């Protein structure tokens, strides 16, 4: 029984690895032209998402093997044969390492700490894997290969991989229910996305421009070179300008909605809490969100309004009790106690004599 379950589990993993490594290989082939400027063999590889996602959602091993097998197939398709085997091993770790987040106690990402762990693991995975690849290359080709490998393999791959993964991974994790959006993760997600969008767009822009410049220069004769270079500068300037404008518009919009959704309600709540503290809060007062806050903020606001209402009510009740003392007499009990006193022989005697004593004193004093 247990054996069968285990077998079917392995079988499922093997099938997943086969399917997704094939997909990765084809994507490696199809996107072969997205070469990073100054790096002959390193391309932008958004397809790295596949092993990393598999590593996170299925298992680290699935992630690792998809990356390894997919890369080997891809190299075959591209005609590199097995000359980059060490980089394929490096890819294994890129797929494997993020998946170990489950051993750090993270099953789904629900708070900022989880998010930070994921970001760190993605960076560590790439840095470690690519460092391994570089070391292998230097061992194979000799000491002189160190700087070229660092500049044309290690750095371009590290930079493009981490940016792309950090940018693309969170949105893909949401539908997979691996990342749960709440007040903590949403703000983290928002800031990382803005930052990385800017970086990625800039890198993409420069690689496109670079690609065009290279091809134009290859086809041009000497006299045209000057003109092409001037044109390149102008084009770059315009492109950067447009990009910046876009970034300003997007970040203004995001900043506006963020502060409206989170910051404004928080400052309203803080002011209200302070008023409550100072006793400047009446039972009819309420914190009202103009427009919609996030669910958490709306809940918090409602909670605050309820709490403030309760506090005021309790205070009012206490004040009322202090101001108008509810003094009551238990008539039955009182009668019993009065009788205990008045029914004694001493009291009866006193009752008879008291008037006489007082009367007796008065005329006596009056005579004086």
């Amino acid at each position: 029984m247990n054996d069968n379950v285990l077998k079917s589990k392995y079988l499922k993993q093997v099938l997943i690895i086969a399917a997704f490594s094939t997909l990765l290989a084809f994507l490696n082939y199809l996107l072969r032209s997205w070469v990073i400027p100054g790096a002959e063999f390193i391309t932008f590889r958004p397809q790295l998402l596949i092993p990393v996602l598999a590593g996170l959602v299925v298992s680290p091993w699935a992630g690792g093997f998809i990356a390894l097998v997919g890369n080997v197939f891809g190299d075959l398709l591209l005609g590199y044969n097995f000359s980059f085997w060490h980089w394929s091993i490096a890819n294994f770790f890129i797929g494997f390492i993020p998946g170990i987040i489950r051993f750090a106690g993270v099953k789904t990402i629900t708070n900022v700490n989880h998010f930070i762990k994921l970001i760190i693991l993605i960076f560590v995975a790439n840095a470690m894997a690519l460092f391994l690849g570089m070391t292998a290359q230097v061992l194979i080709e000799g000491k002189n290969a160190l700087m070229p490998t660092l500049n044309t393999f290690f750095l371009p791959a590290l930079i493009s991989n981490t940016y792309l993964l950090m940018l693309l991974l969170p949105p893909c994790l949401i539908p997979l229910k691996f990342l749960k959006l709440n007040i903590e993760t949403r703000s983290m997600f928002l800031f990382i996305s803005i930052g990385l969008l800017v970086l990625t767009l800039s890198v993409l822009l420069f690689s496109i421009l670079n690609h065009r410049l290279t091809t134009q220069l290859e086809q041009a004769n000497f006299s045209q070179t000057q003109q092409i270079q001037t044109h390149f500068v102008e084009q770059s300037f315009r492109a950067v300008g447009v990009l910046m404008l876009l970034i300003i518009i997007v970040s203004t919009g995001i900043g506006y909605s963020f502060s409206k959704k989170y910051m404004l309600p928080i400052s309203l709540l803080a002011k209200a809490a302070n008023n409550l503290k100072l006793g400047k809060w009446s039972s009819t007062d309420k914190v009202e969100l103009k427009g919609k806050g996030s669910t958490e903020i709306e809940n918090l606001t409602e909670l605050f309004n309820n709490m403030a209402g309760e506090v005021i009510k309790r205070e009012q009740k206490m004040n009322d009790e202090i101001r108008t003392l509810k003094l009551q007499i238990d008539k039955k009990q009182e009668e019993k106690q009065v009788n205990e006193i008045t029914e004694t022989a001493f009291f009866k005697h006193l009752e008879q004599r008291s008037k006489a004593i007082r009367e007796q004193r008065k005329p006596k004093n009056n005579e004086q």
Partner: protein
Amino acid sequence: MAQIISIHSYRGGTGKSNITANLAWMLSQKGYRTAVVDTDIQSPGIHIIFNVRQEKTHFTLNDFLWGKCEIVDTAIEIHNNNNIAGKVFLIPASTNTGDIARVINDGYNIELLSKGFEELCEHLSLDFLLIDTHPGLNEETLLSIAISDTLLLVMRPDQQDFEGSSITLKVADKLGINQIAVVLNKVPKSIEKNELCTQITNAYNIPVEALFYHSDELMILGSKSVFAQDFPEHEFSLEVDKLSDYLLNNE
């Protein structure tokens, strides 16, 4: 003719002795000869407010009740610097623990008390005799109330005093006391004065003649000297003045 006034509270700690001492001083300031009898023999205390040391007392109320002396021998004149006709006399109870134990165990002839009061009024030519009673309704307290012209009922605005004072009132009513007034003491500042007075008056059908708010300075200074003498402008002193006027109008 001397007016005999019992100052009573159903429970202890109402500030009854304090009010008695201040009232006596206030009456003397207005030119009246006033004596204070400490009939709280089981737990005497008013002498402290008048700064009378036990060594200075020749005889105490206890000695009179045991037939050792005349009541007039026990009276101590409280010296005040003002050269006026008014005087305050104190008839202290013994603070000797043996004397206190003897009173509790053996008792004394209660009828002697009323005789003593009369003699005091006569021999000291008193205008007012204030009786600082023991809390509760024991025999000497009942006697003091029975022979009084006026009963001042000191109470705090709380449930226990409210119920207790009601019992005292029922008993005083049976004894045929005509003049009864409530003195509210240690009233929290947060309480609305008129509302409280109305509530008490409606419940007891007798007037509230003075209302003293609780104050820290009174708590600290009031138990070791006559507060109204030291701080004549304090709201407490003004209220004592008002209470003394009430007694004067009764005369």
